[in-house]
Structures are given as C-alpha cells and as structure tokens.
C-alpha cells in the first residue's frame, strides 16, 4: 500500500510571506517530484495563507515530504489527503468564436449539459466557465475541441477536507 503511487492533495497553512512559494516548491523540486498543480489563497483564518498542492507519489514519500514542509519556520501545519478524503474542484475557461454559437447548434447543448456558464458574449467571441472535477472539464474540452477553441485555461485544484483541520485551535494554543 505504502509503495503504490497515489494522487494526494496537500493542504498547507502558512504565514503570508514573500518567498514561501519558493521554499515549499523547492522541497518537491529537490526530490525530483513534479507538482501537478499549486494554488495559494486566503484561508478561513485571517492572515493565514492556504496552499493546495496536487502531487502523485507513494504514501511513504508523502509522509516524509509533509515532515519537510512542516519543518519550515513559517508553515503552521501541513496535511495530505486522498481524493476520497476531500471535496475538490477545478475551474476552467474557454474562449470560443461567437459565430460558432449560431452556426453550430450542438454547442448550445454541450453548454447546457455540462453545466458550464457563459461569462460574456460579444461579436467576436464568447467565454465559457466551468467548475468541476478534472474529468468533467476534460470531457467539455474534448467536445469543444471539435469546433475550435481560441483559448483554454484551467486552474489548479482547490479542495476542502471532510475531516477537520484544527488550525484555529493550534494558533490559539500559541497565544496562551
């Protein structure tokens, strides 16, 4: 089990400081591990940054890397989870020629069925936005590819965990 390569979502709570991205990504780079996606955002706690990092590796390796991440002075806490232990999403955008919306009726069905949202439409192009799992986004991409995509972009994974991560308690403990 420990030797099997699994997709992990790493959640890291940190201070909001310059250079931390470099410090955290260097931990993966040094071990020759590719980061599939990385997202930095605000967290539920004011002033605390939350990183969501998607990587593929064995659980044994994952545990060691979590140790190295937590060792960083400005890291408050790091966790790893499997897909089953998280609720996760990605978001993507498609820029497509507006003519196609009228010329290729099928596109309208694709939009409806995929639960994608039209963000803007003008004479030249329209923009579609879709949030969901990777396979839903990939399906939509495949379907739209047939008609031609002017631009495509997909965000990194963001995820919340089913279990609690007691960061607030940890920070409160420090203040006492």
């Amino acid at each position, binding site marked *: 089990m420990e030797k099997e390569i699994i997709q992990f979502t790493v959640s890291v709570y940190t201070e909001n400081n310059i250079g931390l991205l470099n410090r955290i990504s260097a931990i993966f780079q*040094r071990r020759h591990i590719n980061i599939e996606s990385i997202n930095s955002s605000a967290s539920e706690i004011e002033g605390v940054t939350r990183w969501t990092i998607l990587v593929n590796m064995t659980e044994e390796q994952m545990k060691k890397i979590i140790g190295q991440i937590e*060792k960083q*002075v400005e890291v*408050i806490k790091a966790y790893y989870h499997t897909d089953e232990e998280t609720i996760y999403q990605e978001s993507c955008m498609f820029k497509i020629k507006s003519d196609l919306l009228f010329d290729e009726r099928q596109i309208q069905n694709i939009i409806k069925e995929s639960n994608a949202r039209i963000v803007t439409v003008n004479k030249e192009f329209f923009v579609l936005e879709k949030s969901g799992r990777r396979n839903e986004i990939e399906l939509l991409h495949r379907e739209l590819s047939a008609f031609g995509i002017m631009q495509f972009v997909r965000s990194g994974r963001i995820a919340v965990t089913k279990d609690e991560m007691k960061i607030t308690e940890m920070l409160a403990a420090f203040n006492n």
Partner: protein
Amino acid sequence: MIMETLTVKQKQYLKQPKERISGSEAIVRCLLAEGVDVLYGYPGGAIMPVYDELYKYQDKIHHVLTRHEQGATHSAQGYARISGKVGVAMATSGPGATNLITGIADAQIDSTPIVCITGQVPSHLLGSDAFQETDIVGISTPVTKWNHQITKASEIPEVMAKAFYIAKSGRPGPVLIDITKDAQFEEFDFQYKKCEGIRSYNPVPKVEDSKLEEAADLINNAKKPMIIWGQGVILGKAEEELKAVIEKAGIPSAWTIMGASAIPTSHPLNIGMVGMHGNYAPNVLTNECDVLIAIGMRFDDRVTGKLDDYATQAKVIHFEIDPAEIDKNVKTDVAVLGDSKESLAKLLPLLNANSHTEWLQKFKDLYAVEFEKVIKNDLHPIKEGLTMGEVLNEINTQSKGEAAIVSDVGQHQMIACRYAEFNVSRSNITSGGLGTMGFALPAAIGAKMAAPEREVVAVIGDGGYQMTIQELGTIFQTKVPVKIVVLNNDFLGMVRQWQQLFFDKRYASTEMTNPDFVAIAKGYYVNAKRVTKREELSSVVEEMMQSKDAYFLEVCVEKEDNVFPMVPSGASVSDIRLE
C-alpha cells in the same frame, strides 16, 4: 505565570526609550543585544553603511576580516560548534553573498547555528540586474533554516531578533538576512526585543511520557542493546544525561562523526565510531543488536550503508528533536520526540540498572581484531613512511586529549575522527554532512576565537588546505594562535583510495603537485616546520603545542595509504572491510 512574566517584559519593552538611529547602526545594536562579540566578514559596496557602524562600535564588537566570504561562514561555524553560541558572518551583495553559500549549506546539513547578514542593492534597483545584485534570498532558500529580505529599516529589530531565535532554537541551523542599502541608510525609532516564540514554529516538541515508557520497556528487556548517539546530544547539552543513561543501563554506545567527543573516548562503554570508516565492532554488531537506540542522529547514508540490510533484526528507538527525521531513513519502533537533555533525564529513572557484560565483550573481541589488522599499523607503524594515524597519536599524547580537533574532509578527517582522543565535549569540529573541503582552516580560526582557553588543532589534507589557504592571512592579521597540521600525501587521498579500490587504480586528477607549504606559511609570518621522518615527529609536535603563536606543521606522510575499516558504498555495515 507565563502571562505575568510576559506582561512585565512587555512593560519593560514599552518603557525602553526609542532612539532615532540608522538601519545600519540598528543592525550592530541588534548584534550587541544578542551578545555577539565577534563576527566574520568581508566588506563591499552594498554593506558599507554597516561596516561604517562596525568601525564606530569596534570597542564593543570585533569584526574579523577573512580573506574570502566562504572563510567567514566557516569561521562562524567553528565559533558556533565549539561554543554553542550563534556564529555571525557578513558579506556584501552579489559575489560576496554567493560566496557564503557553501558555508551556509554546510551549517544547514550539520545543524549549526549561524546568522549571515548580506548587503543588497537599494530596493528601487531590485530586479534590475544592478551592479552586484544577486537574488541571494532565492539562492539561499533551500540551504537555510530561514531567510528574509529587509527593505525598510523599521523591520530590522524584529527580523534580527527572529533570526537569532530561529538559528539557535530547536534543531539549529543557518539564517540569512539580506538588507537593502537604502534600509541601512534609513533612520527610524529603534527598540529591541528578543524573540520568544513564533506561532508557526514549534522548535522543541513535547516529550511524551508514554513514549518514554515504551522506550524504557524495550531497553529494560533488551539482551543486546546498543546506542548510537549523534550531534543532537551535544546541541542539546545532554552529555551528562547520556553518560548517566549509558552507565546505569550498561549499554555499549557508539557515535556518529557529528556526535564525537560527547562522551570521553576512554569511557569503558564508548565503543567507537559507526559508519563508512568507523570502528569494526559497532558496525558489525549494529546488525546483531536486539534494540538499537538512536539519540540525536539522523541515520545518514554514510552511517547506515545499505538501508535494506541495516539493523533489520533490531527494534529501533529514536530520540529526536526534529519530527521530519523520524522514519526518514530507518523505520522506528518507538520515536521519542523532544530535546535530548529532557528526554534522557526523564528516561534515566525508568531504566533498570544493568551490565551487559557478555555483549560488551563481543565489542572488545572485535576491537582486538580491528587493532591487530588496522589500528596497530596506523598508530605504531613499523614501515618507513609516516602514517596519518601516528601524527594523531602524537597530538593526543601531547595535548592529553584536551585539544579541539578541527578536521577538513578526506582521509585525514577519517583518521582524525577515528584516532583523536577526546576528553572534552565539542572537541570534534568537522564538516560531517556536506563534506566541505576547505572547512578546517577558517573553522579553526572561529573555534579558537570562541574558546581562547582551548588548544585548537586544525588537521587538514594537502587538497582541502589549498581551498581556503588564504585564511593564513586572517591568522597573521588577527594573531589567533591556531595550530595547523597538514598531512600531505601529495594526493587527494580519499578519492585516490576509491580509484584504487573501485576504479582499477586509474588515478584521474588526484595526484597533486604541491607548493612549498612551509614557505607559504612563512610568507604569512606564521612559524612553520616540515616533518618527513618519524624521529622528528615528536619534538616538532611538542614545539607546535608549546607555541604561544600560530604554528604550521606539514607532515609528509605515506602517499598511498588507505583508510580502513571501510564499508564500501552500497554494502551493508556488517560487510565492513578490514583491508
């Protein structure tokens, strides 16, 4: 109660008068507040305002001008290693800063508390490829415990306080603070408060009683227990606690290179060094013990040899301050997190008094084998050429095991670690993890300055010596009375040994045509002698040890001697070779 103290301290802090001073003066004032009496560095454009303040404060703080910034970091390391205090190095931006990197990386892997301060181009020029601009924060990130760039003078007190706190707390390490030149010039209201904690940083995990009980239970039931201690014992100032544990439980105890000297060499339960060139008995019996107790060590590959065959029969207990080290290389059965001093003190009463006489005898028997095959020939050779071992033996005799031995990297280092006699802790100063050739000469300078009452002997090979030989200039200028012994075999000896053993004697680029080292030392006005014959050795070593000034001794040793025992890389520790 803690709240009350904090409140008092906060009150005191608030009462402190604020003074309007420049950023550069603030840096010097922060160093003074942290008890820094000496620092090592090299001036240059972007750090000049700080040097200007160091000039004004020279009666309070001694700046040592090394001859290369790498020397400054190694001196700071030597200072820290012998004293336990934070060493400080300073350099300018660009090449000055990049020259610090080797020493910083060395301090990182050997957990040495140093603070490096670098000047940086003015903040408005950051990222413009300005003269002598390098992204030193980016460059140093993977090799620092923490680093930070200051662009406003007002940040200086808090950042400097954090720098010292982080460098020395928990598992120590190097910190780099980069300060733009405009922040050095900027004036602000200075107030200093030492750092007492950082919310995202838990330097010393709490010792769990249940883990201690599990550990004690394993130890008490062990028939063949063995301890391997590392530098964590020295860093945690736990030498006495370790000795008490060893003696009460009667456990044969070995050490890693970084742990050397924590327990005197002559202690009956001290069974020597583990690892690639360690002693025969502890390496072989690592694969026979039933409980392996690792204390403040990290199972480096040079210690474990082939991991799959390392102590697989043993239950492993790991006392460790850094949670990331647990199960990193060797799977543990019981991990006791926490400070070594506290853990060992709490462990002691849980242990049963014991003496593993038969088990200890096994170590003695294997020592006898090693003595006959290796040690005898190293220390008391009958062949004509001088051995490195007999030089160490002579230094032991004359220093009565009281000297701090600062070694470089290579064959002489392994010989020094194997044969130096240590009666005092913090006496083996060497580049263990990084293996930095050129470490010893500048590290010896720092060590002697931090502990002027101690005899400091640098033992260096002819290769490593030439990597930082320019620090003879620092020795000459500061008159620091370090003793320098170069064991010259006209080879990069360790690489040559590997070439002999594993590359069919193809000595690619390992033979060195060396200069007249004695003449070079004399050129720096350092007393110097060369020994080529056995009969001269004792009297010249005596002359060196008696010297009140710095002294350089070159000993021309056998060119193609090898260091044994040896665990060939990739082999199991119990497949250690005696020849």
